């Protein structure tokens, strides 16, 4: 009996027992689609976090006040009075102190309410310098960004995020108009280009003013010199760790921290932020994976039930085939191919449903999905494995019976 005859016989058997084949494939299909969807959602979430962190800018060091020795590094514990000042930022910008640092921008943030006409909108106000746009890789779609003269003169100007503009101006061009912040009028000079990772709303809903304007005219008080974040951009990705060392040494020096004393600042790299973030969604991935494995198991049990129910009929068939001269190895081969055909068809359909899900799900929810080819191939292999284990095992047992015992099975 040739392999082609075996394949033809197996496909014929799958076709002839339509309902049983369909139910078997359905069980496999659901399991595989669940695996692909859950893995896809997990990977999508991971990719999104990675993109968001990449959108912070490239070759970036983020210096925050307070010690981070116990924290995850996403944001160090914020000291009550900030230990980081604009003088620190100025010192790091000195090329003789930190030759591997390209640009430095200090930023102070506060939640404020902006008003235009009768509309009020609460957003995050950032006081910073023109370098911010370079470091964070942000450009303006209309108007212009801050200039050094804006900072020097503490100009009453503001650059708005695209979402903020939508909220306050409802589609009109805001450049040249003024918004009010606690009695102070600020002229809108530019609108930032939107970032794709729309979920991180602070990326697109924000207002930026010169650092001097923020500290002297808007917030004031004890926080005049202190800043919340100092962004440091290294000259290239190869000099990133050198830049890290320089920044660390300079800040330890200017803050008079020696020996084993705990630093009053912390420096995060994108890598450390990423690993902190991914450690969170590793948990999610494991959880989703667990759900997927359970659904695959349920699918597998369904397949097993159907195979067991049909085993009587199959045993008689095996008895007859043996009586007509089929060798046991041919019987095993036929059922192996038959189970593989079922598993493969169910698996491919499952991947298909998973792929359709990958298109539909992101439209229904804001989550992203990535269909991993590795996961798909593994899932199909698993489907074939299910078919083989649950289909061939009973068939092999039947192939060992004498033909008449198999034929007499009730």
């Amino acid at each position, binding site marked *: 009996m040739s392999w082609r005859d075996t394949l033809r016989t197996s496909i014929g058997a799958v076709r*002839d027992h339509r309902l049983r084949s369909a139910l078997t494939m359905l069980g496999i299909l659901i399991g595989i689609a669940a695996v692909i969807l859950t893995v896809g959602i997990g990977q999508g979430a991971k990719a999104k976090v990675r993109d968001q962190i990449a959108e912070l800018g490239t070759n970036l060091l983020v210096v925050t006040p307070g010690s981070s020795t116990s924290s995850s590094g996403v944001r160090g514990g914020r000291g009550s009075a900030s230990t980081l000042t604009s003088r620190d930022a100025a010192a790091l910008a000195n090329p003789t102190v930190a030759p591997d640092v390209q640009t430095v921008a200090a930023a102070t943030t506060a939640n404020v309410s902006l008003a235009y006409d009768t509309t009020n909108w609460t957003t995050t106000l950032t006081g910073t310098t023109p370098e911010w746009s370079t470091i964070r890789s942000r450009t303006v779609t209309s108007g212009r960004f801050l200039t050094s003269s804006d900072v020097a003169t503490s100009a009453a100007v503001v650059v708005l995020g695209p979402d903020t503009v939508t909220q306050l101006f409802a589609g009109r061009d805001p450049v040249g108009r003024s918004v009010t912040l606690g009695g102070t009028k600020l002229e809108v000079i530019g609108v930032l280009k939107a970032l794709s990772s729309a979920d991180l709303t602070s990326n697109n809903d924000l207002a930026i003013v010169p650092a001097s304007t923020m500290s002297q005219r808007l917030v004031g008080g004890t926080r005049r010199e202190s800043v919340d974040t100092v962004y440091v951009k290294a000259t290239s990705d190869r000099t990133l760790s050198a830049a890290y060392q320089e920044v660390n040494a300079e800040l330890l020096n200017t803050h008079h921290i020696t020996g084993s004393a705990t630093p009053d600042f912390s420096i995060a790299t994108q890598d450390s932020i990423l690993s902190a973030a991914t450690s969170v969604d590793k948990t999610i991935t494991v959880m989703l994976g667990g759900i997927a494995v359970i659904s695959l198991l349920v699918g597998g049990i369904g397949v097993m039930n159907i195979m067991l129910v049909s085993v009587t009929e199959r045993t*008689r068939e095996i008895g007859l085939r*043996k009586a007509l*001269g089929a060798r*046991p*190895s041919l019987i095993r081969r036929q059922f192996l191919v038959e189970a593989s055909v079922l598993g493969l068809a169910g698996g491919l359909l499952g991947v298909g449903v998973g792929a359709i899900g990958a298109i539909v799900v992101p439209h229904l929810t804001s989550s992203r999905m990535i269909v991993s080819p590795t996961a798909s191939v593994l899932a199909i292999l698993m489907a074939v494995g299910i078919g083989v284990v649950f289909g061939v095992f009973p068939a092999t047992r039947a192939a060992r019976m004498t033909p*008449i015992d198999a034929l007499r099975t009730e």
Partner: protein
Amino acid sequence: MTAIATEPTDVAGAVPARAPVIELDSVGKTYRSGSLEVDALRGVSLTIEQDEFVAIVGPSGSGKSTLMHILGCLDVPTAGTYRLAGRDVQSLGENQLAEVRNRRIGFVFQQFNLLASLSAWRNVELPLIYSGVARAERRERARLALEQVGLADRADHRPGELSGGQQQRVAVARALVTEPALILADEPTGNLDSTSSADVLGLIRDLHRSGRTIVLITHEHDIAQQASRTVHIRDGRLVEPEPHHESWARA
């Protein structure tokens, strides 16, 4: 029709030139189910020569089917020896047994045993698949076999669409398609009306005339008479017929 190798030597080894087709020597078969033991056959010795037409008769439960299954290598005896064309069947491995069933024996069951999902010609083709005949030739030989049993026009019908007599004729076609030297038929007409019975028995007589050895279980008086020899079985033993007691009348 292309003859396939049916020489006794095709299984393995050299064989005495004119060995009987079947030699049973004190064959016994004991069924065990738990502590219960049923002696279905006790010390059956029987020799059947080439070209014989042997009818086996006996009351229900006497062991006719058990004997037939052993003759067809579908079951194994628990005592004694069975030589098929001079070769001890117990010495054959699974694969050799498969070849014997495939090439030397054509079996007709009382219950037809057709695969319900396959059309008539695909059922007839089955034994040829296992003897490695190419697809085109299988189709042709299956068609010829169906023609021989008068069912050429039903080749594409499934068993469910055929009458009992037609189904049994398909089963006969399946038994003869490999041109086996030995045809075993276990009450082939037991489930059929008299017309269908006559059809099927006519086919079997034709097979005998064309030089095949036939062993047939039957209840029919006239059929047993057509056989060249009648063997009586009772309680698992071969017995001499009692002249006035028609022990093989339908039980």
